[in-house]
């Protein structure tokens, strides 16, 4: 691909788009430009093979494009300057119209002869000296201007002159019509406001809600104004992804840029969280571009929620009224986006504290219950231990006593053993002696022995008679002798005298 040619084609397209006041792609698409740079068509038929270029486009731009492809871009125009150059009619008008672009101007005049032809309008403007300029305006641009042309109205038109080739007549290619004077502006403002209001374009119920945490932002404002700085420096650093669309916010170009920006974002970045339209304050006149029907309809029809931060000295702009959310300055718009983020941080911190404190309290409460239980338990345990200790103490004491007793008993026993044997010996010998003496006594007192000594035993009916009283006279008693028995009869009783 010829990069140089592509760049040349792009430059040409930029210039053409500006001249015609249309978006770049309306002149010719990127793809078509690349195709041309690739294939380098030399003839009309070849150029028509490029997708997106048909007869209509060819009629408009074909010759210029082919000239650029031939590598004679500048030279093509330069060649017209040759002194002896003889032009064809159409060729000359192309040259002239190119030159007339430099005669771009803003012209003030009174409107007369308005002819609406559907897609475009013809009208004249004149001054008090009856000088007249015939004007042409595309319907799109007329709508962008946002006014209703009426004869006698004082306006400023912006555009450039152009010779209409089929007729050879000059007409002023009007890009924009502005009203002149606060009075007219105010009247137009009020009328449009009423009309759009009746249509419900400002109604609260059709407003979209901005996401709570706006992150992807489409910013529409001017690169030069204070608004962009105010917005950027106040919006905070929350990792926003800001797509900035440089748009004029005052003057003729603003009428086109603003609506185009709205449209551009909706088409190319429909997933943005918000479109932010900001501009510093100004008079009704300087804010005209924010009071057009076209812009209001773009805002009202935007799929992306629109936040407007447009300053105003008197009336709120219609653009702001149509926005989903409106604040009065670029700074306020920035804060509108920033606030939820800041609040989220604070909310987060307070929630964190709340949860932790609450839980800590719960823990402390539970800890107290546990401690209480522990105290009770340990009290009980201590009691048990104390009792156990005392029991052990007693047991120990008792054991000592038992030991002592055992020890005592043991020594007693061992002593006793010794004593016992000594005693026993003594007892035994005593016993032997006793038995001996008893034997002697027994022997001494043996009745048999007594009988042998001459004593006898008297018994009455089996009973020993020990006293005289035991018997009566006449009783028969048995007398036992050592060698037999006698039966005797008591004949007489004599009591012995007591001593």
């Amino acid at each position: 691909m010829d990069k140089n040619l592509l760049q040349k084609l792009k430059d040409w397209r930029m210039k053409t788009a500006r001249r015609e006041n249309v978006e770049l792609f309306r002149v010719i698409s990127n793809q078509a430009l690349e195709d041309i740079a690739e294939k380098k068509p030399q003839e009309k038929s070849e150029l028509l093979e490029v997708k997106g270029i048909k007869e209509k486009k060819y009629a408009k731009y074909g010759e210029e494009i082919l000239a650029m492809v031939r590598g004679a871009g500048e030279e093509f125009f330069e060649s017209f300057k040759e002194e002896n150059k003889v032009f064809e009619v159409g060729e000359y008008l192309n040259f002239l119209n190119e030159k007339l672009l430099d005669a771009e101007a803003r012209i003030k005049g009174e409107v007369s002869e308005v002819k609406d032809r559907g897609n475009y309008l013809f009208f004249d403007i004149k001054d008090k000296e009856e000088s007249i300029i015939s004007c042409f305006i595309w319907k799109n641009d007329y709508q962008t201007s946002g006014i209703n042309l009426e004869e006698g109205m004082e306006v400023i038109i912006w555009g450039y002159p152009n010779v209409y080739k089929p007729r050879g007549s000059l007409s002023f290619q009007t890009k924009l019509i502005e009203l002149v004077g606060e009075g007219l502006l105010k009247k137009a403002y009020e009328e449009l406001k009423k009309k759009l209001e009746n249509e419900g374009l400002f109604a609260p119920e059709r407003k979209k809600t901005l996401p709570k945490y706006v992150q992807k932002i489409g910013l529409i404002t001017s690169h030069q104004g204070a608004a962009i700085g105010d917005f950027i420096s106040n919006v905070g650093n929350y990792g926003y992804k800001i797509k900035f669309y440089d748009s004029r916010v005052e003057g003729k170009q603003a009428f086109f840029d603003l609506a185009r920006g709205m449209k551009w974002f909706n088409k190319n970045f429909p997933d943005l969280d918000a479109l932010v339209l900001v501009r510093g304050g100004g008079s009704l006149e300087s804010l005209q571009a924010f009071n057009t029907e076209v812009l209001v309809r773009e805002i009202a029809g935007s799929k992306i929620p629109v936040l407007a931060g447009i300053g105003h000295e008197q009336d709120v702009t219609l653009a702001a009224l149509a926005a989903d959310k409106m604040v009065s300055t670029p700074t306020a718009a920035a804060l509108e986006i920033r606030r939820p983020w800041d609040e989220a941080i604070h909310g987060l911190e307070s929630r964190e504290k709340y949860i932790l404190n609450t839980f800590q309290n719960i823990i402390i409460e539970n800890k107290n219950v546990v401690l209480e239980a522990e105290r009770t338990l340990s009290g009980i345990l201590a009691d048990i231990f104390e009792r156990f200790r005392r029991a052990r103490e007693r047991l120990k004491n008792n054991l000592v006593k038992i030991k002592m007793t055992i020890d005592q008993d043991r020594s007693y026993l061992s002593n006793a053993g010794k004593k016992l044997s000594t005693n026993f010996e003594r007892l035994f010998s005593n016993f032997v002696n006793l038995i001996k003496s008893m034997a002697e006594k027994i022997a001494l007192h043996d009745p048999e022995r007594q009988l042998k000594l001459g004593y006898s035993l008297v018994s009455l009916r089996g009973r020993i008679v020990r006293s005289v009283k035991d018997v009566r006279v006449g009783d028969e008693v048995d007398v036992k002798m050592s060698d037999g028995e006698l039966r005797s009869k008591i004949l007489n009783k004599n009591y012995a005298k007591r001593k």
Partner: protein
Amino acid sequence: MQKESNLTQSLKKLEEIVEWFESQQEVDVEKGLEKVKEGAALIKASKERLKKVENEFEEVKKDLEKEVE
């Protein structure tokens, strides 16, 4: 969008946890601990998201737009 909705979700869940704590007459420590753990994770994630992050600023190139048929 993903991140953002995460933040919204996280904050919502956090709010629910706060409400849970508020609604409990007597908090079960086990459950409370679970909630605290969940809350801590949410807070961590949210803080991560809310950390100061440099913004991306880009002026759009108007000629790079999508073509209109």
